[in-house]
């Protein structure tokens, strides 16, 4: 197992939602994965911030790549805009996943040493796991 784990960036319209999901995912996965909450606008309102997402990508990158989870469709636009100008060496994968479940599943897979492909797959498979 490589020493670096895949980093996670949670992009939400709400700073509190991103921070809460990051806290939950960190607790469930044992706290060994870098999870960055990129929520809210630069002014702290509801919305997304390209600057926060770009900083999140940089901070989440531990050398094994980064998986990004957006909360709602329009957060995807912000992430895509950032990725167009993002020239770092790290592999960044944008996932289509339920926000909370995807964050938890992705982080647990990252903690177990999964690569970006496995971590992204864990996030996206969260859509198909029933709670009841």
């Amino acid at each position, binding site marked *: *197992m490589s020493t670096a784990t895949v980093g996670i960036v949670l992009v939400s319209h709400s700073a509190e939602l991103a921070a809460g999901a990051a806290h*939950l995912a960190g*607790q*469930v*996965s*044992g706290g060994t994965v870098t999870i960055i909450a990129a929520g809210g606008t630069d002014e702290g309102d509801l919305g997304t911030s390209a600057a926060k997402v770009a900083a999140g990508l940089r901070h989440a990158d531990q050398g094994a790549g980064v998986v990004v989870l957006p909360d709602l469709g329009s957060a995807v636009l912000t992430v895509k805009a950032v990725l167009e100008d993002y020239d770092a060496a790290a592999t960044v994968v944008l996932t289509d996943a339920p926000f909370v*479940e995807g964050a*938890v*599943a992705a982080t*647990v*897979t990252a*903690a*177990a*040493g*999964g690569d970006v492909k496995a971590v992204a797959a*864990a996030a996206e*498979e*969260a859509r198909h*796991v*029933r*709670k009841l």
Partner: protein
Amino acid sequence: MSASYEQGITLVGDLHARPAGALAVAAGRFAAVIKVTAGDHTADAKSVLGVMGLGATSGQHLTVEASGPDAREAVAALIAILSEATKVGG
């Protein structure tokens, strides 16, 4: 060579989010295919959401079954986690 191992345990606490996470993180480090069964439901031990979806509670009997090169170690490790982590809860 691929072998199968299986061991059961009776939970001393509910299988909440954190113990389920500890189980899935540990399971993910093994090459073996690992299944956890509680009653009529079986989950992939490497899927934290699947493990939580079992809804396993205190007093319930769980079975851990693994097949693959490190199946024996996987079963031992997961049984140990189920024994310890469910004492804490959360």
